């Protein structure tokens, strides 16, 4: 197999100009350790300056360059061409999101879902602006009881010291805080395709990140935000999200934890 030169087929589409998407093929000289992102830059600089794609850190931490590469969603910067072991690489944009141009998709629907679950630590539920906004009020009444995720050892509210968090409590959110919100899981999920309102794996993972944080006082209201047909129950545990995550996170597990929390609290008559 001649891997010194690789053919890269790139999805092209400008909804303002093109009737339908098409593919362009480029030949790229492969250097040792070359990543798909570097190949895209090679194309941009030397072959076709009109190519659209997102980039920033090139070190798999910013989440800009998530795209579909040879059958799977990946970060272009983290994918080495040699390791794909093929002569032709096919690149498409993230699925289930509107294409703006080529590999650039509109991430707004993704981030709107993320914003809907109150994606920040709730330290005082009675004062929380989003918990009291009209949109979220319909979904869940504020529950001022201590965090359903275990209470935790607190040292008061004063910001002149840290809140205490045991190693065990901190370990509970270890996996979830690695999420870079790249959208690979969202794009790979069959449910985000069939139900446009489904919150999706990244958003639900975030919900669990706060639900499991011993410092968060959202408690049952966190669960209420992810209840319902577009919430956790839409997940059919297909594990696509788990398979594609470039940070090896298992969103399905987080969704299961939220489901369990909901069932438990419903049985106990707390909600």
């Amino acid at each position: 197999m001649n891997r010194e030169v690789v053919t890269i087929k790139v999805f092209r589409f400008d909804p303002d100009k093109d009737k339908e998407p098409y593919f362009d093929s480029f030949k790229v000289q492969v250097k040792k350790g070359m990543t798909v992102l570097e190949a895209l830059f090679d194309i941009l600089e030397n072959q076709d300056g009109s190519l659209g794609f997102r980039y920033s850190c090139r070190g798999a931490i910013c989440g800009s360059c998530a795209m579909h590469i040879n059958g799977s969603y990946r970060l272009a910067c983290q994918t080495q061409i040699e390791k794909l072991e093929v002569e032709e690489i096919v690149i498409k944009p993230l699925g289930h999101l509107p294409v703006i141009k080529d590999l650039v998709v509109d991430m707004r629907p993704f981030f709107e879902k993320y914003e809907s679950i109150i994606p920040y630590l709730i330290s005082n539920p009675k004062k929380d602006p989003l918990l009291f906004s009209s949109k979220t009020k319909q979904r869940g009444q504020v529950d001022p009881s201590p965090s359903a995720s275990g209470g935790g050892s607190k040292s008061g509210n004063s910001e002149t010291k840290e809140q205490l968090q045991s190693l065990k409590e901190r370990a509970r959110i270890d996996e979830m805080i690695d999420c870079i919100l790249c959208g690979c899981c969202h794009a790979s999920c069959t449910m985000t395709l069939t139900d446009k309102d489904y919150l999706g794996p990244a958003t639900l993972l975030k919900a669990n990140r706060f639900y499991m944080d011993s410092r968060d006082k959202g408690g049952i209201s966190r669960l209420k935000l992810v209840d319902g047909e577009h919430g956790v129950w839409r997940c059919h545990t297909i594990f696509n999200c788990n398979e594609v995550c470039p940070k090896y996170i298992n969103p399905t597990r987080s969704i299961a934890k939220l489901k369990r929390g909901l069932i438990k609290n419903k049985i106990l008559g707390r909600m």
Partner: protein
Amino acid sequence: MFEHKVIIVGGGLAGLRAAIEASKYADVAIISKVHPLRSHSGAAQGGINAPLGNHPEGRDDTWEKHAFDTVKGSDFLADQDAVEIFTKEASSRIYEMEHWGVPFSRTEDGRIAQRPFGGAAFPRTCYATDKTGHTILHTLYEQVIKRKIKVYDEWQVTSLAVESGLCYGIVALNRLTGELSGFLADTVIFATGGAGRTYSKSTNAIINTGSGMAIAYRAGVPLKDMEFIQFHPTTLVGTNILMTEACRGEGGYLVNVKGERFMKDYSPKFMELTPRDIVSRAIQTEIDEGRGFENEYIYLDLRHLGRKKIMERLPGIRDICIHFIGIDPIESPIPVQPGQHYTMGGISCNERCETEVKGFYAAGEAACVSVHGANRLGGNSLLETVVFGKIAGEYAAKYATGVEKSLIGKKSVQDLLKKDTERIERLLTKSGREHPGHIRQELKKAMNEKLGIFREKKPMDEAFARIKELKERYKDVTLSYKGRKYNLDLARTLELEYKLDIAEVITIGAINRQESRGSHWRLDFKDRDDANWLKHTTARYTTEGPIISYEPVKITRFKPEARKY
């Protein structure tokens, strides 16, 4: 035209922290050329310094000790009044962020954990495994959502509106549509990050082009101390991705081809945890004198730390090594070399983040307050973003509530919008002989080779001539794509023009400074020269090139002394 009381350019840590503060007092918007979560701050790994005293070895830590370490680390070029504010505010900023939800790693008794970093005698660096920047960036963005702060993402600023010493707003290019718009504001804060990508070997994100610094400079705001470029000792061979100082903080060794921990020859007491400028020179010396591997790198060895510690404290480093170079640091040493990492200089401002231009502020890596002087300590950059981000936000918002600019401002921004529209139209229509990519590559190569860790007059003069030539060639540049929508060729060619400005200022500052101080090491002037050079470099823009002048360093508590580790 858009209007806001306060406009913050940059959605990294300094920008987000400024926005959070400013939103307490005034209407504020963030403008960034990428979504805020894609900012380079997220790539910070090792930690953030504050004298919390949570570690048994650092129980009696104080802001004064932190201040002294910072000033000594800066080779006495930092302004000590600013360093005092910096270190006094540190602990409050950490506690505040902990309450906002930053998932700091913890001690056995549940406090924020601290690890050793270079230039401090005991552990002072708070961390969240080796993803500290990532977790703080996400947490501050969450706080921005909570406050419903308006974000214009994928807008690239093209100009700053300044007239008669007053700032009125900006002009920016919407990357998605290719259209330009004016943004009228009472105050503008630049938190636009560093200029790492003027060098070919850099740990920085590809977006770190120094454009913000250059836009301010072109609008008449001076740049300060630009010749001080930090080279991080340990960057992964090939991609130059950062291998955090925490690798050494947690006990990692630097080893040459003979298998020796060579830092014993350079800094026997602090060994691997000597400040970055010194360790980078040591590594480069080993490589230059034939004790490196393949004349290119040395080893960062973590194997003796064991699987458990590596998985617990340095999981991100392990992932990067596996994905980008195919080795597992639990089993193999990591091939590393020094690489450009940080821009100590920046937009000249005071300890309130105010610049010479009324209504214009700077914070974070884009700014030069200066708290880092000639060499920044590891763990102090994240701290700078939140301490001075907050200060910039507060002062900018308070100033904005007291001014009404209306007509003059509107006209100023409109005029600038017209100018930039013509400039971009010209770029999109003209055809020339020069390829922007070639100019970019040649510039980065020259900077890397001739303004690196070891400097001397002749190569720097050559670099200066090369930059002049590239600036001329840039005038004849042609774009390969002339469309408007998501035109990366246009976006990057605009950035290139600014890069050329920045490279010129770095080079001229370095040629002029005939001494060795911190990161600026001259083979032809090997000593620090306080009598002549204990001063800040200031560069002002003119069409013929920068005009250089000097300003005194503010020395309050700590008299300059020999910097020994």
